[in-house]
């Protein structure tokens, strides 16, 4: 585990401890279960976003994608009466397809990720609203999909399946990022794309792959969110979610410069963000301050991390100087 991750883990435990101390309801099974559910929901897009950020890219379109894919998903199930399993596959593939388009525009047509995905943000939101005539999309009365509902909103011994799926995907992605050839290529491209290219790494493919992974995870996530909210108002569903994902990744140690980050860190970042949301509710802080609390914590967190690194480096330098000084004295004594 990286030192950064350890620091974040300690911060998470301290914050959770304080909240639990101030309001014991925080550790009630139902609250923990609900928080875990939200961690699962937001975690998928955070991991995908983390991969993109490691290539020093960014994807702003995630929230709009959740809305667009969500309304299409509900439409497939209600209007077209499609088999839910098939609909899930269609939606994940659709997300993957959007990721492919982003990847293509960014790597082959050399457009900037910020611009490509900003346009995605506007486009997908607009299309979602047009597709539904700006009306809320929801399931028909009496419609139910027991298996799908169990898989998406079910709980096993109080543990939400969203969280279970998230943990499984996080483990897979952790192995991919930290142990696989692709992960090594990903870090190499993020740290120095040119050197990676000069070593025969197909950097464009690696970068495009991260947008495709994020697209697929967004597709999957859009189903979870749709089943969680049961109805989607296309103008507001998922707004700012891309920013939560970016915040979780950055809090989790990803640098926007690229080449840095860990899946475990991103998981912790997602958890911390959800605990903060929860804290606002539980401690009676006006919920309008929600964003402000999040902003302040991320700012302080990243700042503290930087200062800590600086302090560590200074101490290492001082130690080395000390060693040298004693060496000099020893020499003088000879």
């Amino acid at each position, binding site marked *: 585990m990286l030192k950064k991750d350890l620091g974040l883990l300690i911060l998470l435990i301290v914050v959770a401890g304080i909240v639990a101390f101030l309001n014991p309801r925080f550790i009630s099974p139902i609250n923990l279960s609900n928080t875990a559910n939200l961690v699962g929901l937001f975690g998928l897009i955070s991991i995908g976003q983390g991969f993109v950020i490691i290539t020093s890219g960014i994807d702003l379109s995630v929230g709009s994608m959740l809305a667009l894919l969500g309304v299409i998903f509900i439409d497939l199930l209600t209007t077209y009466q499609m088999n839910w399993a098939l609909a899930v596959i269609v939606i994940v593939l659709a997300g993957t397809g959007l990721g492919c388009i982003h990847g293509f525009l960014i790597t082959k047509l050399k457009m900037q990720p910020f611009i490509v995905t900003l346009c995605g943000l506007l486009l997908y939101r607009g299309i979602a609203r047009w597709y539904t005539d700006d009306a809320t999309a929801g399931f028909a009365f009496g419609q139910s999909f027991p298996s799908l509902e169990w898989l998406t909103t079910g709980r096993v011994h109080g543990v939400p399946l969203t969280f279970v799926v998230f943990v499984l995907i996080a483990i897979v992605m952790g192995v991919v990022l930290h142990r696989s050839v692709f992960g*090594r290529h990903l870090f190499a491209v993020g740290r120095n794309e*040119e050197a990676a290219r000069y070593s025969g790494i*197909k950097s464009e493919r690696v970068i495009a792959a991260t947008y495709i992974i994020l697209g697929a995870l967004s597709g999957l996530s859009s189903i979870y969110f749709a089943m969680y909210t049961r109805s989607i108002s296309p103008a507001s569903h998922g707004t700012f979610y891309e920013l939560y994902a970016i915040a979780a990744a950055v809090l989790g140690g990803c640098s926007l410069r690229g080449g840095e980050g860990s899946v475990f860190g991103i998981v912790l970042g997602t958890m911390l963000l959800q605990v903060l949301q929860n804290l606002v509710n539980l401690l009676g802080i006006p919920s309008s301050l929600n964003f402000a609390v999040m902003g302040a914590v991320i700012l302080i967190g990243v700042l503290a991390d930087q200062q800590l690194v600086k302090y560590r480096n200074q101490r290492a*330098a001082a130690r080395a100087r000390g060693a040298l000084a004693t060496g*000099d004295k020893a020499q003088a004594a000879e």
Partner: protein
Amino acid sequence: MEPFLELEGISKAYPGVQALSDVSLSVAPGEVIGLIGENGAGKSTLMKILGGVTEASAGAIRIDGESRKALKVEEATAAGIAFVHQELNLFDNLDAAANVFIGREPRTPFLKLIDRKRLNAAVQPLMDRLGLDFAPDTSVAELSIAQRQLLEIIKALSLDARVVIMDEPTSSLTMSETRRLLSVVDELKRNGVAIIFISHRLNEVQECADRVVVLRDGRISGRLDGGEITHERMIRLMIGRDLKSLYTPPAAPAGEAMLELAGFRTAAFPESAVDLALRRGEILGLAGLIGAGRTELARALFGIDRPLGGTIRLGGRNVSVKSPDEAIALGIYLIPEDRKQSGLILDDTITANISLANIRAFASSGLVSTALEEKNAAAQCRALRIKAPGVSTIVGSLSGGNQQKVVLGKWLSMKPRILIFDEPTRGIDVGSKNEIYALMRGLADNGVGVLMISSDMEEVVGVSDRMAVMHEGTIAGILTRDRFSEEAVMQLAVGHSGGDGSHTTH
């Protein structure tokens, strides 16, 4: 003349390193002091102390008789100490005049806007003095490296510099640009400006320096005056031993052609074509002026850029190279010119850099084995004698020579057939240089085709078995060892045909 600047007993300790001990140096108006030493000998530290960037641990700096412990940057500038840096400090997006007066632009009386007229008027005479033939409002982005360097010198002059410190000023200059720079040095000297000329290129030091100060391991290992300045003496003082002649002949005569290029054209010179053959077991030097299309040739061969036309034959078979991974699959590897940008991931470990191009070899079913990787990296470190605390050392903290060995290590663990070195020893100390030459020879003797692009005359003449000289995108001539001379290379490089039979025919 009386020295106006004196360093007395300067010492500097960094954590774990004594960078300088008891170094004394005096500078008088109008003298050119060559400052030489291997990388890590303390030249940069000494210059940083002079420039006020770092403070000496002990010793004094005396300017016009006034002694002080340390200088601030502004004090150094005020005292007339100016730098022309190895990495140029100019703003690409501004024009030449604006760069010279950056931070002290003349202002208009009204609104305090920049007064372009006065700005250009102030710069023009300085440009005339050094014979710069571009307008003051030329954008720096359009200037060549040599022109930028001269611009830096102008900046120094505009600050009334009394001593100009040039750090490796010729490392990226062509031969004719180098001549030009040396004549500017002469001109400055006549006007009473002192020069501290730091360079690895001993020919140039020998040519322009009045005296030479040699640093070794943070101490002055010797001083040479006038006629004493010879190659042998400088090298002996730098490394503390006599240098064997650079050239080691191959173990066996060169064999059949391994790599043949015919009608090979790159985007740099779409009209010119290259015909070239690299034989088994030889080191083929590729000389020429900077901008002759040598790096472009290497990049196209390695698949970074697409060639416009022509054929590549490898081992008698036609091959096509569309991307670096295809080149790598064929066993054609490139050690790029810009080590820090293209060759290495500086903030990654030695292990990660060495296995970068070949991670799949250390993986089973897609998962990388760190143990295998580290074993390989450790083996390369031993074989190449990379000086580092361990294989997890961050590459950026190594010296230039060791960094280059890491780049080499990356390819050597992958059985090269053709190895292209682009400026293999730029900015590398003499000791590491010789190790790299020895490695090249060893590779050639083991049947690897070695193509060495080099702008360092000493290197290309001293190491190659055969030499191809490029001029404007084509091979101007091929020289065999018996016809090697600086003169012959120059003739071909500038486009004069080198006389009988030097043109290549295939």
